[in-house]
């Protein structure tokens, strides 16, 4: 078996690590395939957490130990859900023609992403510049190699402070494979896109009628597949970030977000986003705060805040502790001083962002979801994904107003990728069912005569807005 195959196959350990949590009855309302994909996402977060924690305390990485620690953590997290209602699985309904078409389009998008990545047409240069070298060095050292990160000639090139999830997972695969397989690393893009395609419809189906959830999921997967190819994201951290961000947002706009299980799941996905890339942290903060503000009357804020924020804090704490203890970094490296905002570059920045987005099918991956949000916005909850999109856009523009005197080149190769999650967020905002409609009791569009009760329990506070 070639090392590339082993590298990719090693990621089968992620669902194993996350399954003890997702097997909890609280998640049984989601389809098995969705839970399997979610358990991979949760497992990846826990595996990365333990790899960072082991590196902090000086324990060398051993694959079985890491998997066992992650799976044990997932199992222990079940105790947080002990008082949860036990949800009945969603009934299996025959797919409608619209849903079959959605599945077809989604499959084509994933297949095309695979073709783009396998043919080397979508590979990110960043894979060769820092994601790959760091993962390779970490795998060789069987820990986060502080000496490598601190090499005077490399310290800036390697972006030592970048969060550790991607490099940890790549190092995990490289340890299993015996070396870092560069081509296989690029194939993580279609793999993550497939994971999103498997998990998203069921989660979105809690907040939107089934045909809308399926078709909206298809649009999101297709848009991110196109963005990943056009903006050369294969092999870098963006596809993982898109997975975590899209799934977290989909959980938080649905009824599951009012339950402990939903909040814990969203919290773990937000930790994944914050661990994947720097911009995952502002996303996590923005979406969690907006969620707590918009839905504050539907739940108890304290426990919800804890479940949403604690995983991110716990995931990043060992990383920042590692940076401080090994004299590598204190917090994230920036692009110049915070207060040095070059407002005179605003026109250049906006125009360069426009050019970058336009280069992907005339910005249609962004414009079509935006149109969906504007035309179909029926729920006040749409303010969560819409607000996050606005806040993230402002954050990106703010970042581009720093540093490089001429940011056009920087924007040309980065803006498309970092703005890509907006496609998913905007589309989600346009998929929500109208306020006052119980997300789980409203039948799907094409099954209006279907039984209304899907067997889900009532959630405290969820009826308040209808009164």
């Amino acid at each position: 078996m070639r090392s590339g195959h082993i590298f990719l196959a090693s990621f089968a350990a992620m669902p194993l690590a996350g399954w003890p949590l997702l097997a909890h009855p609280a998640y049984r309302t989601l389809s098995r395939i969705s839970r399997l994909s979610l358990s991979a996402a949760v497992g990846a977060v826990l595996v990365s957490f333990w790899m960072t924690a082991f590196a902090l305390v000086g324990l060398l990485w051993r694959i079985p130990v890491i998997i066992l620690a992650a799976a044990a953590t997932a199992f222990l997290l079940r105790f947080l859900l002990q008082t949860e209602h036990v949800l009945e699985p969603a009934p299996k309904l025959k797919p409608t023609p619209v849903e079959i078409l959605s599945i077809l389009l989604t499959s084509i998008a994933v297949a095309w992403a695979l073709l783009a990545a396998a043919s080397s047409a979508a590979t990110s240069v960043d894979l060769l510049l820092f994601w790959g070298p760091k993962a390779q060095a970490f795998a060789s050292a069987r820990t986060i190699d502080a000496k490598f990160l601190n090499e005077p000639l490399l310290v800036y090139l390697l972006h030592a402070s970048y969060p550790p999830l991607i490099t940890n997972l790549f190092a995990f695969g490289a340890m299993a494979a015996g070396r870092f397989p560069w081509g296989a690393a690029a194939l993580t893009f279609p793999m993550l896109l497939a994971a999103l395609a498997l998990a998203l419809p069921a989660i979105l189906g809690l907040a939107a009628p089934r045909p809308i959830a399926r078709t909206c999921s298809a649009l999101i997967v297709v848009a991110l597949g196109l963005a990943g190819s056009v903006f050369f994201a294969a092999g870098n951290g963006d596809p993982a970030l898109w997975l975590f961000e899209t799934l977290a947002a989909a959980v938080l706009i649905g009824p599951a977000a009012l339950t402990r299980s939903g909040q814990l799941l969203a919290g773990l996905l937000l930790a994944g986003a914050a661990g994947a890339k720097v911009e995952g942290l502002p996303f996590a903060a923005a979406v969690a705060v907006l969620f707590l503000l918009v839905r504050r009357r539907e739940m108890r804020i304290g426990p919800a805040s804890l479940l949403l924020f604690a995983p991110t804090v716990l995931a990043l704490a060992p990383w920042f502790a590692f940076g401080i203890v090994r004299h590598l970094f204190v917090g994230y490296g920036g692009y110049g001083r915070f207060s040095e905002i070059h407002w005179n570059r605003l026109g250049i920045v906006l125009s360069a962002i426009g050019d970058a987005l336009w280069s992907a099918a005339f910005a249609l991956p962004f414009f079509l979801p935006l149109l969906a949000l504007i035309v179909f916005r029926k729920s006040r909850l749409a303010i969560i994904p819409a607000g996050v999109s606005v806040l993230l856009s402002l954050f990106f523009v703010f970042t581009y107003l720093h540093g490089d005197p001429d940011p056009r080149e920087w924007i040309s190769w980065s803006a498309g990728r970092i703005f890509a999650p907006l496609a998913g967020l905007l589309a989600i905002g346009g998929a929500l069912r109208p306020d006052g409609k119980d997300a789980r009791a409203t039948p799907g569009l094409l099954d209006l005569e279907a039984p209304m009760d899907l067997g889900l329990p009532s959630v405290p506070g969820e009826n308040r807005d209808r009164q």
Partner: protein
Amino acid sequence: MRRRAETFRPSFFLLSAAILVAFSIAWLPPKKDLLKAPTTPFDRIPVPAISQSYRLLWRISSVLPAGASVAIRSEPRNPDLESSLFQNGIALLNGRKVLPAALWGHPVPEIEKQADFVIVVGPKPPFPPGTLLFESPDGSLWRRSRP
């Protein structure tokens, strides 16, 4: 009325997805190119220098002894390109001490000359830096001659 609106929503999502799938298909390189396996994971990105250096460094990685110090330069000399080659060397020559011939577009000869081996990307240099150990159309590997 609501039913009509609700019918339109999935149709809109579906049509949008179909449009983007069409763009995805159109974006990929021609079919005859796609069916040819790439020689490196960077063959079809718009930075051709990367695939050339990748091919060369990948082959040299099986020849160059572990722990050896090596600098990577271009022929003709180009400090911008050599800065990138240093980064590529860090990635692809794992286990060797890779030294830069240029950093941030500025030559650093005082660091480069510390290397025991020199990789030249491109044609053979007019003044050989040492003993030729390996050669391919993408470049060559030399053991530096010490006075």
